[in-house]
């Protein structure tokens, strides 16, 4: 489509230049995220190519030392807690919002999305100020609460998208057949919107797992998560262990987000299938 049926030389040059420019842009996009991967397998302590040799010693540092192990543990505690709360409450809210009769939908939606818009430093500093007063600073509950605010918009949006394909007549049919509302939710609605819910859960997990600014303000020394260890490491002493941690985090995020997007597409595909 780029070239017309009878391209002029000038047109050929323009298209060639476009390809060249785009090739460079793609290199610019991909090289930085791919570079930590080989470096993390370097046996030496410097970030220089060619590698001195291959080794998994930096992964042993990340997976084997107490400091990083506790960071991984903290990350998992916080991310699972956030996912659980954000997915449950976000799904309920998405269901409520999918009802056209929901009062003030136009006000509620921007409010729900606002944690994505407000600069995260403001959220972090505000949480620190308020949570310290009510005794939630330096607690897992506090970090999970703050992360839930950041993660729940993703759940509401993804579940909401999967609900647009949901045929409400099915709930009506279930009600006529004598199902109680809770039964028809678990037996009719949930199985159908499950791809959307799971994809929302994956988004929530990644949001929390990758978050560093809120954690920086709210976490005590014993609650450092993986991103926070990385942040501190990058500030103080650059070690190849960070490339190993980055590779691990990147792999987990990308796998989860690929799954989430496939699920979300499946959830929305239903809408097209059902007309």
């Amino acid at each position, binding site marked *: 489509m780029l070239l017309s049926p009878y391209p002029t030389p000038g047109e050929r040059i323009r298209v060639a230049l476009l390809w060249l420019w785009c090739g460079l842009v793609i290199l610019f996009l991909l090289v930085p995220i791919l570079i930590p991967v080989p470096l993390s397998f370097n046996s030496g302590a410097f*970030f220089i190519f060619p590698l001195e040799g291959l080794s998994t010693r930096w992964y042993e540092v990340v997976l084997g030392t107490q400091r990083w192990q506790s960071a991984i543990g903290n990350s998992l505690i916080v991310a699972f807690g956030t996912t659980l709360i954000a997915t449950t409450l976000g799904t309920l809210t998405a269901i409520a919002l999918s009802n056209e009769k929901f009062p003030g939908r136009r006000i509620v939606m921007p409010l*729900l999305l606002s944690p994505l818009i407000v*600069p995260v430093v403001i959220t972090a500093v505000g949480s620190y100020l308020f949570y310290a007063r009510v005794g939630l600073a330096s607690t897992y509950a506090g970090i999970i609460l703050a992360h839930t605010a950041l993660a729940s918009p993703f759940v509401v949006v993804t579940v909401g998208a999967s609900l647009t394909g949901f045929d409400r007549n099915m709930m009506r049919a279930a009600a006529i057949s004598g199902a109680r509302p809770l039964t028809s939710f678990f037996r009719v609605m949930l199985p159908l919107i499950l791809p959307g819910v799971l994809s929302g859960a994956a988004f929530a997990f990644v949001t929390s797992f990758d978050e560093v600014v809120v954690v920086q303000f709210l976490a005590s020394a014993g609650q450092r998560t993986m991103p926070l260890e990385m942040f501190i490491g990058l500030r103080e002493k650059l070690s190849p262990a960070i490339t190993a941690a980055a590779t691990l985090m990147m792999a987990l*995020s990308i796998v989860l987000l690929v799954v989430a997007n496939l699920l979300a597409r499946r959830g929305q595909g239903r809408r097209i299938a059902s007309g």
Partner: protein
Amino acid sequence: MSALLPSELDRPALARGRPAAGADPGTASAALRRAEFGDRLRSLALAAPLLLLLALSFGIPIVLLLSRAVYDPTIADALPRTSVALGNWNGQGLPDDAAFIALAADLSENQAKGTAYELAKALNARLPGARSQVLKTVRQLEGADGKPPLEIMKAVPFWSAPGTWPVIANGTHAITSFYLLSALDLRWNADGGIERVPPQQAIFLQVFLRTFFVAASVTLATLLLGFPLAYLISSVPKGLAAILIVAVLLPFWTSILVRTAAWTVLLQKFGLVNDMLLWLGFASERLDLMYSRIGLIIAMTHIQLPFTLLPIYSVMRTIAPSQMKAAYSLGAKPFTAFRRVYLPQVFPGIVAGCLLTFILCLGYYITPALIGGASDQLISNFIANYVNVELNWEMAAALSFILLVFTLALFGIFARILGLDRLKMV
């Protein structure tokens, strides 16, 4: 779970097994209203847990923080007698001796309660140099040996200097515009007008300008890099487009911290970027890219590129190629066709992508903190610094206030001209 149920006319009758009340139109509409009211209530109840949680975990913290920008009772609480004594001072010259005696009594009491340092700090924030003077006076008052407090106060020139008492009087009002004005490098002058602070004290306008400059540079760079790529993806066959889109999405799905970490590795003095520049002959010696403005802009451009590209791509995808062909067949030159047919249609996508990137850049924190040098710190870094290092919550709050106003105003423009739907690009 009734929100799951359809709320149409027939629902109440069907769902509850009652006979349809169609016989009497008055009762029917009343029943319908009741049912709809119940329906609304139930869907509100479904959304309530998350809304309450967000209010608690996000709403209250932000309101509390912003209120600190205009509400600072530290001085008023620490100087109750002085507040009373200054009640009918006209703000001109020096107040009467009663005010000096009241201030001395308040200072001694703060020293006894152990809050003198806090007061000194609060005054110092408004009047540079006040900290040492307050602490000095407090010590002298403590070791007075029967010397009258008024004499001690008068002996310290600071308390009789012009400018000291207006600041104290101002501080005794808990609601203050001092911090918000300071965040814009402004202050009240002696005549009750607003003036710029002296150049050596002005720091924040420069920080805001720097933040805007970096955000604008990054937005421009993402557009220059992203527009051609979006165009290419939208015009190649589907299979190839899918591969190219993955190249955009892979970095998009990698966290900002991980990508910043990758750039700190790449931008080292002996890192890959410097190697490349030397090898290609663009530089004759290794450049200091870490802790530099250019390094910061490169890394931020990398992180923001998908945010600019994806909205542009989503618009380009909808433009039929036949339109350009039609323009050519009508005799338009390629550039004319591009400018008059293609660009106007893509424009909403460009605005959406650029606004989104610009808004997100205003709030950047991690990347400037790790890659930028001391003179590349953006407004978010200053907010964090006021909390972490200076422990000056009011100043952090005032800067947050202004950053939030800019962000929300731009976002309001975004929502007004483009609608909220474009945000759904997760």
